[in-house]
């Protein structure tokens, strides 16, 4: 026993001590994957370069971890000093050894049978801070676990799951707080973003994404509609330590497809929010789709970068939106700098000087059905883009697809779906997908790799000049970061509905992806 303990200690000397400063400097320890997007800037870029364009063709599976779950696996694992922390649906968390793929511990949560999740009991990942790992649960709790044992340190109720709230998002650890959002946009909840004290679980601040009467922005809602206006926060945002601002996207206004009961712009639905990390106070917002009637949540990962816009170097947010447009915003004030279509879209003539869409007539959902591009799943969705500072390219998985949108009636009933309509595919059309490399400042397409169907997997770029992505048909693939040509591919046997990561295990670079009901790790030998 003594010997085992000794070996473990030798292998993981730093396990479980992830300070805020380490996450801020995540690029300086590329062997770890410390936060959902790899760094606070939302880059999903690995500075590792053992696996390169020249040798990625030799990539082989190192291990495979099978999840004994009935629900989809959407997790982005974290890796700290050789230990992977991955969430399993519905709300479990496993720590495993990245050398052997063997489990160290698992936290299993008993979740109620009647949780309200529109689109599967999923979980997209954990956060880690100091010696604690954090996960949100489908019954809308936030749980802190001891990183060494998986034992519960605290467990707090974020919201009432019976009224439609759930948590599927990976929390974000910032300084001494855990920031967590909610899902429930199909149930007419009132959206919120919370921050909890990482040590105690005490709530430090709450930002309601829908202002109440009297507050600024409340004039953008009809009568009582703000109470059931959704605007949820189900994908992890980014953080800028310099300005101390958290950047977080918000979801669609509810009900999804009938806007008659919520006339107005419906702030802050479909927005990017910039909030003070200490207080949760709103610094600025940018609304991508005012008065959305197509369910185009703006919960994509905000990518913080610098770009030269009209000759001026600026700190910007790059945002590929579900509504079909790519945006560049000024990071300091949310002003619109540039934008252009990301995929085929038929609902707007374009964006005006302030980035507001100029609507085309007749594109709202209707009783008989209205054909619109992009589809209800959007030109992109929650899966992550990637930014490679070295190639200065923004990589994004894009969906080329339309929907027929229906408008219906729905009476609000707490805990019940609140959609007011529906949708279907466009008969006779075979949609497709692509991984595209965009010039960050303009959104101009540098290259495109076409995918058989509209994807549900994010992308990872690496300093080795490789972009990893996945497909619905189970392909895990590596593209040349400068040309988009396939360098390597592997058939995982299950749909890829997740984001890749990269890290070191025993000094050797691995790339991991969740596919089907498994997590697979790949390495060069």
């Amino acid at each position, binding site marked *: 026993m003594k010997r085992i303990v000794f070996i473990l200690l030798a292998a993981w000397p730093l396990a479980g001590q992830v300070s805020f400063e380490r996450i801020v400097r995540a690029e300086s320890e590329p062997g770890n994957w410390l936060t959902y997007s790899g760094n606070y800037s939302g880059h999903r870029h690995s500075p590792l370069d053992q696996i390169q364009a020249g040798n990625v063709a030799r990539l082989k599976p190192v291990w495979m971890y099978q999840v004994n779950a009935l629900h989809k696996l959407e997790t982005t694992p974290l890796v700290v000093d050789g230990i992977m922390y991955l969430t399993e649906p519905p709300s479990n968390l496993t720590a495993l050894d990245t050398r052997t793929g063997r489990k160290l511990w698992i936290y299993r949560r008993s979740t109620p049978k009647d949780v309200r999740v529109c689109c599967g009991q999923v979980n997209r990942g954990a956060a880690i801070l100091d010696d604690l790992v954090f996960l949100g649960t489908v019954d809308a709790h936030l749980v802190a676990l001891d990183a060494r044992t998986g034992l519960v340190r605290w467990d707090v109720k974020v919201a009432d799951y019976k009224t439609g709230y759930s948590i599927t998002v990976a929390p974000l650890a910032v300084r001494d707080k855990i920031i967590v959002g909610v899902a429930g946009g199909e149930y007419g909840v009132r959206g919120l973003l919370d921050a909890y004290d990482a040590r105690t679980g005490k709530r430090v601040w709450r930002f309601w994404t829908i202002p109440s009467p009297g507050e600024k922005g409340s004039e953008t809602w009809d009568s009582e509609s703000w109470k059931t206006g959704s605007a949820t926060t189900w994908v992890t945002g980014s953080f800028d330590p310099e300005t101390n601002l958290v950047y977080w996207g918000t979801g669609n206004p509810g009900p999804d497809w009938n806007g008659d009961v919520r006339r107005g712009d419906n702030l802050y639905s479909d927005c990017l929010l910039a909030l003070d990390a200490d207080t949760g106070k709103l610094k600025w917002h940018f609304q991508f789709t005012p008065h959305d009637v197509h369910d185009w949540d703006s919960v994509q990962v905000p990518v913080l970068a610098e770009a030269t816009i009209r000759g001026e170097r600026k700190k910007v947010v790059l945002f590929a939106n579900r509504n079909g447009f790519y945006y560049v915003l000024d990071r300091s004030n949310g002003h619109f700098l540039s934008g252009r279509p990301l995929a085929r879209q038929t609902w707007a003539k374009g964006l005006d000087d302030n980035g507001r869409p100029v609507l085309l007539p007749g594109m709202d959902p209707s009783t008989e059905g209205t054909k619109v591009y992009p589809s209800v799943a959007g030109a992109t969705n929650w899966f992550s883009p990637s930014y490679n500072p070295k190639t200065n390219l923004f990589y994004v998985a894009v969906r080329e697809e339309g929907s027929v949108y229906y408008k219906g009636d729905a009476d609000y009933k707490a805990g019940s779906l609140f959609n007011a309509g529906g949708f*279907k595919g466009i008969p006779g059309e075979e949609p497709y997908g692509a991984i595209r490399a965009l010039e960050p400042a303009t959104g101009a397409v540098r290259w495109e790799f076409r995918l058989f169907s509209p994807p549900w997997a994010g992308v990872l770029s690496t300093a080795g000049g490789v972009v990893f992505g996945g497909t619905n048909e189970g392909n895990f693939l590596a593209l040349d970061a400068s040309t988009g040509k396939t360098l390597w591919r592997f058939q995982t046997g299950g749909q890829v509905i997740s984001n890749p990561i990269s890290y070191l295990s025993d000094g050797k670079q691995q790339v991991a992806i969740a596919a089907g009901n498994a997590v697979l790790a790949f390495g060069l030998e």
Partner: protein
Amino acid sequence: MVRFMAVFAACVLAGAAQDRSDEPVLERNPFTSAADRARGKQIFLAQCAPCHGPDGNGGRGANLARPRLPRASTDSALFRIIRDGIPGTEMPGAWVLIDREIWQVAAYVQTLGQRAAERISGNARRGEDLFRTKGKCLTCHTVRFTGGRMGPALTEVGRSRSAAFLRRKLLRPDAEIPEGYIFVEAVTRDGSRLSGFRLNEDTYSIQVRDLSDRLHSLWKDELSELRRSSAYTPMPSFDGVFTAAELDDLVAYLISLRGES
């Protein structure tokens, strides 16, 4: 740990309070009037259509506009699925619907794939003969355990298709190609040609059943040409082949195929 146990207990209780899967279910749907179906349709559009599509044709969820729902062949089975969901799938239980509403949705769902047997003038017996002889339909279509694999199996075609559709199909086979029938023509780099129907496809490969019933799996980067068509069918038109009376007989036979032995 104390706090953890408390939460655990609360969750179990909540689950027990909501879990209705042990409650008995009536054998037959007591709510099947036109008004019930209309209310069921309303609920369906609001709560089921986002996944199953407004016409029940499927999408994220299963296609319900089919003659037999494999998981819900009886009223009570359908009720249970709507109420409890299907473990292991994305199909959630309808926690907030009361029993009457569940029955109403079930009543509507059962209308999606059913077409009443239509009165038609032809003679099904004669139609069957024509189907086997003059039409040579079994070359490509299976009825029960006999026939070819190229076209859709017709064992239950009378449940899902109308007489008007079948008549149209015999005269203009390319007017409406069934979903999933993608005709593929491929040329490999060494010049060999292949055509048939697509069985599967991903970004890098495609699987095909050729017109001689052979199976092929091909890497796309080994192909010099790959064309797909959802508008092509090898089925010939029977316009001018059958007399009007023969056509009536054939349609009568096809409509009689309802999967019953």
